[in-house]
């Protein structure tokens, strides 16, 4: 029953987001046609005559009343059709799919890394509370956590990309044509991933670290830790087996919430590294008033966030035996 209310909640949110995405951009000034004929104020002056304009509007279904457009959109959505991007001139689903794989790769790797690292470092830090490693880690991670992702990205590009020339500074793959093996391709993708992922990991690790450290400090004061010590268990074992699992419990949902932040960070990082992900796309979609794309991108991002929450719920359920059977 708990699940049902949860799912109902998710559905409401998705519906709210869908309608929000649909109406807000359409109430914004400007329309997709401005950019259909080049960038106004930048490119060739191409003047649309009224007939062509009307034809274009009809072609994109923008001449119908708003509510009917909404109904059409909803019906298409039910069939899994996200529409046709006006600016990029391609199906929204294929554009998103092409971009999403990179964003997921970037978000996925860095999320796994920063959550794992943050948890381990937070646990170690709390375990040594007041000690040198605790103070050191705390200062270090609070400091690096204060870097705005775009700024850090720029610094990394200058240092490791341009000055040391260790890593490629843009894109997700090398612009070379043929890979001799899949391993080589994977390596290349990894090579491109390192700087943006590092940026994301560094800027997000502090949050998880602090959460974990605080949670862990609470756990360390618990009686069952004392019980474990009284059993004669080794410190590392207690930390791993008794403390970490309990400390993770209260912070799983908070970590899931951070995925939202993560997406914000990703937009910036993708911009700085010209990484071909959804973040950049979304930004362009707003600028170009590409309604279908905007709707699709927002929907996907919301779904990702809801999925993250769902995963967090699942993890929580797995971690907390008290919820498992009821």
């Amino acid at each position, binding site marked *: 029953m708990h699940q049902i209310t949860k799912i109902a909640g998710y559905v409401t949110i998705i519906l709210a987001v869908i309608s929000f995405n649909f109406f807000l951009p359409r109430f914004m000034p400007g329309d997709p046609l401005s950019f259909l004929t080049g960038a106004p104020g930048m490119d060739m002056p191409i003047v649309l005559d009224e007939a062509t304009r009307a034809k274009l509007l009809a072609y994109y279904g923008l001449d119908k009343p708003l509510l009917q457009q909404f109904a059409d959109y909803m019906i298409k959505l039910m069939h899994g059709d996200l529409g046709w991007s006006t600016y990029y001139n391609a199906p929204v689903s294929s554009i998103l799919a092409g971009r999403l794989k990179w964003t997921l790769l970037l978000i996925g790797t860095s999320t796994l890394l920063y959550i794992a690292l943050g948890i381990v470092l937070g646990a170690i830090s709390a375990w040594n509370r007041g000690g040198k490693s605790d103070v050191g880690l705390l200062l270090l991670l609070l400091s690096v956590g204060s870097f705005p992702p775009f700024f850090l990205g720029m610094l990394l590009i200058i240092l490791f990309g341009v000055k040391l020339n260790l890593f490629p500074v843009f894109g997700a793959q090398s612009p070379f044509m043929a890979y001799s093996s899949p391993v080589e391709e994977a390596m290349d993708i990894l090579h491109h991933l390192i700087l943006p992922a590092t940026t994301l990991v560094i800027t997000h690790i502090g949050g998880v670290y602090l959460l974990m450290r605080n949670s862990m400090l609470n756990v360390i004061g*618990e*009686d*069952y830790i*004392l*019980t*474990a*010590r*009284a*059993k*004669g*268990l*080794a410190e590392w*074992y207690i930390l791993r*087996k*008794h403390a970490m*699992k*309990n400390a993770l*419990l209260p912070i799983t949902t908070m970590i899931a919430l951070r995925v939202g932040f993560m997406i914000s960070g990703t937009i910036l990082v993708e911009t700085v590294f010209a990484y071909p992900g959804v973040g950049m796309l979304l930004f362009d979609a707003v600028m170009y008033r590409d309604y279908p794309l905007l709707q699709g991108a927002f929907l996907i991002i919301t779904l990702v966030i809801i999925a993250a929450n769902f995963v967090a719920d699942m993890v929580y359920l797995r*971690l*907390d*035996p*008290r919820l498992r059977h009821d």
Partner: protein
Amino acid sequence: MTLLKLKRLRTCFPTRDGLVKAVNTVDLEIGANEILGLIGETGCGKSILGMSIMRLLQPSTRIEGEIIYKGQDLLKLSEAEMRKIRGKEIAMILQNPATALNPVLTVGDQIAEAIWLHQTMTKREAREKAIEVLRSVKIPSPEKMANECPHKFSGGMKERAMIAIGLACNPALIIADEPTRGLDASTKEQIIKLMKEVTEEKSMLFITHDLDAAAEICDTVAVMYAGELVECAKTGDLFGKPLHPYTMGLLDSLPCRGLKPIRGMSPSLIDYPSGCRFHPRCDYASAICEKKHPEMVKVEDRHYVRCFMYL
């Protein structure tokens, strides 16, 4: 034969408000198969005493004196050596089983891990042993309950599980810290009965503020006030013929003995009154009590008291 001997044990730790002198020059002996009750009110240092023996206090705590267990001074052992003592030689049953059991691990695991760690056996063997132990503390259908997490256990069952953890490696000495706290009357009785049963061939330091429980289970009882022992005697002697005014007051404030309270309140462990620490609350106090700190004296056979009345 003496199993554990505390010699001039002092434990203190710093806090924001000052140095807490929780245990002050305590001398105590527990013989083989002896159950020693340590009674006292909240904040008198009795739990700290237990934890001092196990060396489970914060690293900033200073423990002085000697804790001689089977001839070796526990305070001189390394952390690794001490780990071999904990659980295997001396087990501790902490107060409040609701929080002392790890909520996310099965009870079986929590027992088995101690066994598996201290004895050379496979995890499966340890697990079977754990079920054995659960059975010995009278948990119904232990095979099933071993796979459950603590939230499926009632208060009394949790206490039993705690005892099972303590018994897991068959230690020689058990330190039980207020095992009956917060239990209902009937459950309390059962637990005390169980503890009596399982410690038949063991020694136990039974820390409690519950005078009834102490009377029922202990061979010897020591009374602690403001970080030091004020009286120590065989259970019958202590309850039948208390010597120290504090012990008398304590017994009189029981509902069944008429609810006659001791006036005032316990001092903090940071600064005590001068002289006898009990004198501000004592009906028998005289001039000397305020000035001089009394020593423990032997009044009768195995009956010691710290009071000027018996000097």
